[in-house]
C-alpha cells in the first residue's frame, strides 16, 4: 500500500509497536537534542515519523534505528532527517489554538495595558522562521480582528523572517490550499481572503501589516537590528540548531524583546538548560517564555 501523508509518499511501513521501550529512548534523544517532547499519548506520532526514516534505511526495528541515531558515523545527519520528518506537515494557519487563545485573551491585553501606561500605542510582533507565511498571516488576522476594539488607535506590524528565499516568495504571494487552511475558521476566510480557483489568496489588508525579509537567525549582525519587539513567535525552528547556536539565538531574542515581552515556541518545545534569562510561564494548555518587566512582580499575572 502506498500512502500520501502531507507532501511525502511512503510505502509499506516497518513493524510499528509503540509500546516498544526503544521508542521512549528515541523520544529522549529527540528531546535532548531538539527540546521537542513527545508524551506517551503522542508516541504513535513519533513512531510514525520514525517509520518513514526506518523504511528509507531498510531498518526493521526501533532498536536498530536507535543505533543509527546514536552510534553510527552519520548519526547527526540522520537525526536531522528525523527532525525534518517530525516537523513535516506542521505548517498551517491557526496551528496552535491554545497559543492563539493566550495571545488574544492574555498576552495582548496584558501588553496593551502595560504599554498604555507608558503612553505607547504601537505593537511589534516577529514571526521568526516564518516558512511559507502561514504563521504571520494568522497573527495578522488575529490582530486585525481587534483593530476596532482593544487595538483601536494602535499601529501594529509583523516582521516575518526566514532563511529560505523560496519560502519567502511563497509567503509574499499569500496563496493557500486546503491543507494550509485546514484549521482556518470560515469567518476568517470570508473576511481576510479571496477565493482563487481551488485556493484562497490573502487580501491586502492582511498583507499590509507584514514585512517579509530574509534573516539568518545565526547572523549576529542581522539579529541586532530586530529590536523593540513585543512578542516573538519561533515555532519548531530552534530544533535544527546545536546547543551553542540555540543559546545564542535565544539570547538575541531576549535582547530583541522589550521588557515584559513574550517568546512563544512550538507546543512541546523547551528551553531547559538553554537559557536562564527568560521565565517559563504557563497559560491554559500552553507555555511561553517571558522577559521580566522592569517592575517584575512575578507570580500569577
Amino acid at each position: 500500500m502506498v500512502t500520501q501523508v502531507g507532501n511525502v509518499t511512503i510505502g509499506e511501513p516497518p513493524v510499528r509497536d509503540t509500546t516498544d521501550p526503544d521508542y521512549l529512548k528515541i523520544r529522549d534523544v529527540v528531546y535532548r537534542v531538539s527540546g521537542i517532547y513527545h508524551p506517551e499519548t503522542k508516541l504513535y506520532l513519533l513512531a510514525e515519523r520514525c517509520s518513514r526514516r526506518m523504511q528509507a534505511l531498510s531498518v526493521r526495528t526501533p532498536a536498530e534505528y536507535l543505533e543509527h541515531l546514536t552510534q553510527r558515523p552519520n548519526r547527526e545527519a540522520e537525526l536531522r532527517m528525523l527532525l525534518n520528518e517530525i516537523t513535516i506537515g506542521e505548517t498551517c494557519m491557526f496551528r496552535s489554538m491554545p497559543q492563539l487563545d493566550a495571545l488574544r485573551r492574555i498576552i495582548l491585553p496584558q501588553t496593551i495595558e502595560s504599554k498604555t501606561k507608558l503612553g505607547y500605542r504601537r505593537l511589534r510582533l516577529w514571526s521568526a522562521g516564518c516558512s511559507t507565511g502561514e504563521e504571520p498571516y494568522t497573527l495578522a488576522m488575529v490582530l486585525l480582528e481587534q483593530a476596532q476594539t482593544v487595538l483601536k488607535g494602535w499601529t501594529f506590524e509583523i516582521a516575518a523572517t526566514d532563511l529560505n528565499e523560496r519560502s519567502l516568495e511563497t509567503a509574499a504571494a499569500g496563496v493557500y490550499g486546503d491543507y494550509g487552511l485546514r484549521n482556518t475558521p470560515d469567518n476568517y476566510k470570508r473576511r481576510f481572503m479571496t477565493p482563487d480557483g481551488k485556493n484562497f489568496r490573502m487580501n491586502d489588508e492582511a498583507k499590509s501589516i507584514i514585512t517579509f525579509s530574509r534573516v539568518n537567525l545565526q547572523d549576529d549582525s542581522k539579529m541586532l537590528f530586530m529590536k523593540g519587539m513585543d512578542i516573538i513567535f519561533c515555532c519548531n525552528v530552534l530544533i535544527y540548531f546545536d546547543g551553542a547556536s540555540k543559546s545564542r539565538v535565544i539570547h538575541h531574542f531576549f535582547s530583541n524583546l522589550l521588557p515584559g515581552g513574550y517568546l512563544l515556541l512550538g507546543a512541546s518545545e523547551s528551553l531547559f538548560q538553554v537559557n536562564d534569562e527568560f521565565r517559563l510561564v504557563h497559560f491554559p494548555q500552553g507555555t511561553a517564555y517571558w522577559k521580566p518587566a522592569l517592575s517584575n512582580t512575578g507570580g500569577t499575572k
Partner: protein
Amino acid sequence: MNPALHKDLAHRIASIDSLPTVPAVMRPLLEMLGGSHDTMDLEKVIEAVSRDKTISAQVLRLCNSALFSRSKVVDSIRGGVLQLGLRRVQEIVMACTFCPMLRVKKIVLDPAIFWRHSFGCALVCRKFSSLIDYPDPEQAYLAGLLHDIGFQVNSLIDPEGWKAAVHKAVSDGIPLYDAEMAILGYSHCETGRALAEQWQLPVAVAEAIEFHQVSETAAEHGDVVAIVHLSDLFCRMRNMGYGYYEPLCVDFTDDPAWHLLAGHFRKLASMDLALFTFELDVLIEEAQKLVDEVFSSPTLAA
C-alpha cells in the same frame, strides 16, 4: 478561619440530611493513606473492600475494563491487587466510592468534570511529590483527590448561591474561589475543612483542603498544602480545570508555594519544569479515562 464562620458552617453542614458519610470501606484506606506507611495493612484493605458488595462489584468491573486491559480475568479484590498492584486498586476503590457519593448537581457543574479535575490533581500531586522526594506521595494523592470537596458542600448548603458563584466564575473567567468569596462570602476551602473534620480525615489532608488556595497561610503541613496548590494550578493550566477558560498566566517558580518547597526539597531547583508540564498530559488522560469509566456505570448514569 474565622471561628464564628467555622462554627456557622459546621452547624449548617451538620444539619444537611443528604450529606454522605464516609463508608466503612474507605476507613482503612484513608487511615493507610493519611498515616505512616509503617501502619499499612494490606489485608485490612482487601477485607474491607471485599465486604462491600456494591463497591467490590464496581471495582472488579473497572479492573476488567479496557482501561486496565489484562489477559487474565480479575475475579477477586485480592486478585486485582496482585495483577494491578495495590496503588491501582486503591485508586479504583476511591473512584468507585467518592464519585457516586459526592455528585455536584449537574445543572451547575458536571460531576464528571469535577472528578476529572480531582483525580487529575491527585495524580499530579503524587508525581510532583515523587519528583521532589516528598516523603509521602500517597498522602499527597489523597489530599489532591479531596482538595475541592467543599464544592459539593456548597452545592448542598446554598444551591442558589453556589449556582450564582459558578456562573460568575464562568462568565468573568475568574477562579471559582474568587467567585465564591464575592457571592457567598466564604469558599469551598472553609466548607471543605468543616466536612473534613466531620469525616475525621487526616489533619494534613484537612489543611490541604482549607489552605490550598492560599498556601502561604497553612499552619503545620505547609509542604503538602503547597504541593496541592501547585498541582491544582498545573491541572487548570493543562486543560483539566472546571471546563471553562481561565485567562491566567502562571509563573510557577515565583509562587510562594514553590518557594516554600524549594527551601525544603533541593531537587526542585534542578527540575525541568517544561518537561514535567508536557508529561502531565499522560496523567490527565489517565484521570479522564478512569472517571469516564466510573461514570459509564449504569448505576451512576441513573
